[in-house]
């Protein structure tokens, strides 16, 4: 694996990101819209005297955590789609670039974007609602990392379909992530789900993260077992999704990458 080529890929998408406001909307516009919507909703719920302590903080932390996962997922697929939209797929993969180097480049970019987005969202929440989402303390970092890894897994899952079936399934880039949200216990505990959904839920790393986050907020202790369970599942999901992507890429190469442009 050549690190320089991954840097090249990083620059390729960084250049694209800097062009025009619509490319920056994922970083600024949508997070702000969600913060306003969910923030105001949670304050209204709080005002109704529900017996849930820290409700705005729980919802806001859930929101920012889900953003991490969603962002990680969409970043991967959209980078791939950029090559479709700009008819650059054949050009790109007729260079010495390996699929693993492309993956390295997009993961680098995704990590940088995420750091930026987290900083921006946290600042916006503090500014608008005087809430500190870092109440969870240093635990935020390992949980954010595991969430991001799961987001990447979803991204590679969507990209596997896109690289094989092409434009026809490009909506998967935005859809597949949403499929996991109801089972991840983002805004409510797993116990609120029916039993069949709970069985699915405990197979996802995100569930352990959001449950763990709530334990930190309510009890102030770091749930190590939840963290390691999410990390273990993350490794399984990410390895499987990258393997699937490489497999689908090779299958697509058999049909010819030129057909996707």
């Amino acid at each position, binding site marked *: 694996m*050549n690190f320089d080529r991954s840097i090249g890929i990083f620059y390729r998408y960084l250049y694209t990101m800097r062009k025009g406001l619509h490319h920056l909307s994922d970083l600024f516009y949508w997070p702000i819209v969600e913060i306003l919507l969910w923030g105001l909703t949670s304050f209204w719920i709080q005002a109704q005297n529900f017996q849930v302590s820290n409700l705005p903080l729980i919802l806001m932390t859930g929101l920012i955590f889900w953003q991490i996962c969603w962002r990680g997922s969409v970043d991967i697929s959209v980078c791939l789609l950029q090559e479709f939209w*700009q008819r*650059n797929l054949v050009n790109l993969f*007729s260079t*010495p670039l390996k699929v693993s180097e492309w993956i390295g480049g997009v993961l680098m970019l995704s990590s940088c974007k995420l750091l930026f987005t987290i900083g921006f969202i946290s600042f916006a929440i503090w500014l608008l609602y005087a809430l500190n989402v870092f109440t969870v303390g240093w635990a935020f970092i390992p949980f954010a990392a595991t969430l991001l890894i799961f987001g990447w897994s979803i991204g590679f899952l969507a990209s596997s379909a896109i690289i094989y079936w092409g434009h026809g399934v490009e909506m998967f880039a935005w859809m597949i992530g949403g499929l996991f949200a109801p089972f991840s216990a983002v805004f409510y505990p797993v116990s609120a789900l029916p039993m069949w959904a709970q069985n699915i839920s405990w197979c996802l790393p995100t569930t352990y993260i959001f449950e763990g986050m709530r334990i930190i907020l309510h009890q102030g202790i770091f749930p190590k077992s939840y963290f390691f369970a999410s990390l273990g599942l993350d490794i399984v999901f990410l390895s499987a999704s990258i393997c699937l992507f490489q497999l689908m890429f090779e299958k697509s190469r058999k049909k010819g*990458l030129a057909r996707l*442009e």
Partner: protein
Amino acid sequence: MILTVNRLKKAYGALEAVNEISFELKSGEILGLLGPNGSGKTTTIQMLLGTLTPTSGSIFYFGKDFVTTRSEALQHVSFASTYTSLPFILTVEENLNFFGRLYGIKNGIERAKSLLERFGIYDKRHERVSSLSAGQVTRLMLVKAFFTEPKVVLLDEPTASLDPDVSRDVCNFLLEQRKERGLSILFTSHKMEEVALCCDRVIVLKQGQIIADDLPKNLAKSTSLHRLSLTIVDGMKRTQSLATAAGIRFEVDNRVILFSLEERKIPPFLHQLMQHDISYVNIRIIEPTLEDYFIKIAEQS
């Protein structure tokens, strides 16, 4: 040998797009790949680039199997085509910097400066690719293909969107590059004049198979039909009757008649016209070109 292709095949179900073709590209050679639409030219190029997996057969670059040394081989191979684009949202400079990185070049725009100047687009380096004309994009694609200093360049109809004068300039550029750096070029084109000018050798594909592998002039000669143009002063009807009787195809445009016939038949036919008191002026004999050859095989397919 720079490139060796052995029994390369690509089948899509029952359809054999490329059927067991074998050829070699020598160091410093410019090889043309010709054929009508659907003959397998682009499929072959895609397989040589690794963006399409062959059904069977093998490709060797610099004596090494392409399957196991793909990335290493492509470090010395580059590509340009009318059928692909560059990220149009990026500027010329950003594109070259990014592509340069993929070949281990840190400052692409600096490396490409002389080529951008050569093609008259250096002053466009800060503009987005989307703002360039089709001709300028094609020239940028060529810069992209050559600025990495490859040993082999694969070009898929690189001049399709260019004006004839720019096309000729591109041809001259290819010849220059070959002379200066001894690189090998494989290129497809529908412009026969360009192929005849640039290529040392031409491979002709038809329905996925190689039907000819020869020098451009030899291929042109193989059509054997010359064209004889005469302006008939007196005896047009008799001329047409004589041609029909001799089985010679002709087209008439006012007083000008254009015959298609084998070179050896020209003197006896002219003698026959003289014997029948047919008077003509402006005699012109046109040698067959590669284009005639191409039209012939296209008609046959």
